[in-house]
């Protein structure tokens, strides 16, 4: 009996040990496999078989392990690159296609896939720089035109606010604006903005982005002149015109590293009427006696680095909107967790150093954004801005807007619909803004008074042709 008990307990111990051993081996097995030295036949046979079976994650895992162990040949890099491409990890595929091209520098297949990997990674300039390396047959098949124009696009924005009878509404809710203090207040009823964009190459390597836009907006204007205290100029409704043109250049400095200088030039015409009164239709017979023309130049530079999982950039912008001398510094990060455009999250941190008549103020601003592919032909983006912004040049949206109002908070939803058979892309954007209209005293533009908040809704639609 004792013997049997001993035997059973021995079996138990053995079985416990066995289980521990099995678990140990199971836990360690990837480690063992990983530390195992591969030989060429193992690498080539296994990656080839997995490639033929369509086991893409297997190709990537074994292939990367082999590359880390020093295996370096065309077919291995091509298999890894293709597996990553099929898994839509386009940015990860790029270095492997480049490695393949080191062994087979004229390989049309590697060039074509590298072209698409760049294109699907949002690296249009890099894709375009490869076009010369494609065969004439590939260029025909991919319908790549011979000219250097990359993008032509048109956009239109319509914005309307819930502002009605601004003078009364502001007085009722925010109080009466000063009449003896020189200063100005604006509030927007609605606006229309049309723009045309053209991107083209110069010397095959340098990308030029030009654009022109025309904006017409209906606004409320309250203005007290230093020369006429006590007699504010009140324009219930007046149309303001703004013409903007911009040029930005993208110069490649190295591997995924770019220098982007540029400028925006903005001309704003504000009418001055010789007769003013208040109330709807009250000024309909008035005539423009003068026009104030504001000219602003906004130079900007950006240094940008693109890598497999992240884009990083720093920017500098200078402007003198509303006579506030502003130096704006930006740090921009975009993460691509799957190394493609299926999901991306960006964050922009801005520091605005504002100088008005020698008095300096620093303002920090944080702007996040998230975008995702929800369908083959549909991308959605969402951008909330929860901090009050004034005179902010948003480096990503590339819009310079000289406005004497502060945006309290804004939520922007964007829809992109790319077509593949025809090289067109449509985008629609809806933006909600809570706007703060203030009276800005001329003596201290940093500290406006009499806040009045209203809402604005903007809808933007556009279509662009993409090479």
């Amino acid at each position, binding site marked *: 009996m004792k013997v049997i008990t001993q035997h059973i307990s021995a079996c138990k111990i053995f079985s416990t040990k066995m289980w521990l051993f099995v678990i140990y081996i199971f836990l360690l097995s990837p480690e063992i496999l990983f530390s195992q030295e591969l*030989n*060429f*036949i193992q690498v*080539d046979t296994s990656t080839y078989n997995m490639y033929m079976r369509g086991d893409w994650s297997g190709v990537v895992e074994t292939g990367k392990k082999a590359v880390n162990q020093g*295996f370096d*040949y*065309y*077919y*291995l890099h*091509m298999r890894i690159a293709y597996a990553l491409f099929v898994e839509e990890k386009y940015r990860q595929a790029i270095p492997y296609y480049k490695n*393949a091209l*080191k*062994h*087979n*520098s*004229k*390989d*049309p297949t590697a060039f074509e896939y590298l072209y698409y990997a760049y294109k699907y990674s949002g690296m249009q300039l890099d894709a375009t720089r490869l076009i010369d390396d494609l*065969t004439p*047959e590939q260029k025909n098949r991919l319908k790549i035109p011979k000219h250097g124009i990359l993008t032509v696009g048109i956009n239109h924005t319509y914005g309307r606010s819930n502002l009605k009878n601004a003078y009364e509404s502001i007085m009722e809710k925010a109080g009466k604006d000063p009449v003896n203090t020189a200063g100005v207040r604006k509030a927007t009823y609605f606006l229309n903005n049309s723009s045309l964009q053209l991107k083209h190459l110069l010397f095959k390597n340098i990308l030029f982005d030009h654009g022109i836009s025309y904006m017409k907006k209906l606004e409320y204007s309250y203005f007290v002149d230093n020369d006429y205290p006590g007699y504010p100029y009140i324009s219930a409704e007046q149309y303001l015109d703004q013409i903007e043109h911009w040029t930005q250049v993208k110069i490649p400095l190295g591997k995924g590293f770019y220098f982007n200088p540029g400028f925006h030039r903005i001309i704003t015409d504000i009418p001055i009427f010789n007769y003013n009164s208040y109330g709807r239709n009250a000024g309909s017979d008035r005539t423009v006696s003068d026009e104030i023309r504001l000219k602003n130049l906004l130079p900007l530079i950006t240094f940008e680095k693109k890598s497999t999982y992240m884009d990083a950039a720093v920017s500098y912008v200078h402007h003198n909107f509303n006579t506030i001398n502003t130096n704006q510094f930006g740090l921009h990060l975009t993460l691509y967790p799957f190394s493609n455009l299926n999901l991306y999250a960006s964050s922009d941190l801005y520091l605005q150093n504002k100088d008005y008549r020698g008095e300096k103020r620093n303002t920090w601003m944080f702007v996040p954004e998230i975008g995702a592919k929800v369908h083959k032909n549909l991308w959605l983006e969402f951008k909330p801005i929860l901090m009050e912004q004034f005179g902010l040049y948003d480096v990503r949206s590339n819009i310079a807007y000289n406005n004497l109002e502060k945006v309290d908070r804004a939520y922007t939803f964007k829809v992109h619909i790319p077509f593949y058979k025809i090289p067109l892309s449509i985008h629609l954007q809806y933006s909600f803004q809570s706007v703060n209209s203030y009276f800005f005293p001329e003596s201290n533009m940093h500290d406006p008074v009499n806040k009045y908040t209203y809402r604005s809704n903007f809808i933007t639609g556009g279509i662009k042709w993409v090479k």
Partner: protein
Amino acid sequence: MGKIKIILAGFLVITSGIQLLAQSAAYEKTIEGFQNSYLSEATGDLSQAIQQLKDIYDEDSYEINLRLGWLTYSAGQFTDSYSYYNRALSLRPFAIEPRFGLIYPAAAMGNWDVVIKQYNQIIETAPGNTIAMHRLGLVYYGRKEYDKAEKLFEKVINLYPFDYDALSMLAWTKYQLKKYREAKVLFNKALMNTPGGQSAIDGLELLE
């Protein structure tokens, strides 16, 4: 003094004799290793053929490195083959034999830039080498670089005007370059050499 000279001379004779004997034994061992390796290869036992040469491996031996290059290539060990052929090439930099060898694993791994470089070096060393010219022409043809292929096939044709392979490949290259009249003449000449040549027949059918 005389005795010392005699002793020294005797010592030299003995040591030389020992050296010769040792060398002779080493040669015998090397030749035996090669012999066994050939036999193993003939019976299809490549790993044994490789091992037999590895047993007598001398990194300064051109012959062993060259043959190991071939055997490892045959066994599918392309990276090893590449290294052995490279070693052989470094020992005989002006030889074209290891360059032809190096091309096997390079092509098998898809490293076509190495293949092209080696063929160009062969042609530089041996300008009339039609094998290198023809094969390099095939590489360019495969890459759709027809202008480069045309020049090489024409050189081969100048040396071997009645070679079927060269005629048909030049004809196909002319066809790709849309030089249809010349292509037709060349396909017909190829058929004179090999009347049933399928490649030339296919080409002529396309031209009709």
